[in-house]
């Protein structure tokens, strides 16, 4: 009787463990934005060029994106 209960318990816990194997646990630790492992990885607009002016950075980047579109300068 006892051993049967033990066996059932064992089977249940074993299957739990086995099932656990199918799930990928989160591989990356949580990080705060702009901070990485103690080092500060400044966000692009926080560097010397933009000094935190995100709006300007974004509009500059958008303008830069436009350069990849030759249709802008070659209308039909």
């Amino acid at each position, binding site marked *: 009787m006892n051993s049967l209960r033990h066996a059932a318990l064992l089977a249940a816990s074993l299957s739990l*463990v*086995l099932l*656990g*194997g*199918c*799930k*990928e*646990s989160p*591989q990356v*630790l949580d990080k705060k934005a702009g901070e990485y*492992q*103690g080092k500060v990885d400044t966000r692009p607009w926080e560097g010397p060029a933009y000094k935190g002016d995100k709006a300007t950075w974004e509009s500059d980047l958008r303008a830069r994106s436009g350069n990849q579109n030759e249709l802008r300068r070659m209308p039909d």
Partner: protein
Amino acid sequence: MNSLTFARARRGLALLAVTACLAGAQPALAADAPPATSEAATLVQPGNNAATFRDVRRGENQSITFQAPADRTLIQASGERWRQLRNGPITVWGGWMLVGVFIALAAFYKLRGKIMLEGKPTGRLIERFNSVERMAHFVLAGCFVLLALSGLTMLFGKHVLLPLMGHTLFGWLAWVAKNLHNLTGPLFFVSTLFFVALFARDNVWQRVDALWIRKAGGLLSGEHVPSWRFNFGEKTWFWIGVTILGLIVGISGLVLDFPGLGQIRQDMQLAHLVHSVGAILFMSLSLGHIYIGTIGMERAIDGMKSGYVDETWALEHHAYWYETARGRKVSKDDDGTHTPAAAPNHH
């Protein structure tokens, strides 16, 4: 249909298609048949690349030129499978398995305790391992421990040590571990070959081994089962552990260690899976070996430590070997029915 509406319709269709494709769905332009491969198509080339790229997306081999990976696969799908296996079953089950074996041994120790000598040590010593054998053993064992620890760091460190140590310290440790692992690996492989050659002769099947199996080595009953130089438990460890797993882990490790020999990514994924599964099994078995060689059995370590064992220990654990070492004859065919002479101090 006038040309304007046609153009509109086409534009609409195109918009749909782009939207779908940007969102990663299958291309919607089923209407355009993919170009035929044959010579008939030499002149005409429509712009629907769906067929061309379908295989690429599936990760199937394509004729790729230049600095394509050596496997000539543009987008490999097997990497994702490897990731699932490594991060899933191998990490999780493997980890629990090691923990489980450890707990089992602890429990066994708790229940059974140390296997003590029954008789009193005589003080008379028999040479069990000569210096070459001991050196071979400890080089191999040393390599094994370094490899096991460094390997564990690489597989589980991220989950166990990293949260404790932080990235910088752990990064440094893992770097040491990886380089140690890569440098020790080849030595381990060579040592294994040497070790196997050295001990294979004494590890072949002997009739008395059957008795050992029947009595499970007497581990639970406490009964002493006679054996030659190595009992069946040791032989199991030797063949399944040191030889088979050792070579599997060693060879797959070399594949990973020397990546410039022409192996492709898929080879290395496979090698890594084999390597890590093999290593976990190897480590699990090794726990048993280490256990019995150290805290599991009184004076078991003497043979490896000094090369000599006490007669009492020899008689209790390796009776036939003891007999021969004492110059008496034991038939090779002895299946355990022969009772060895009583040890000098046997009560």
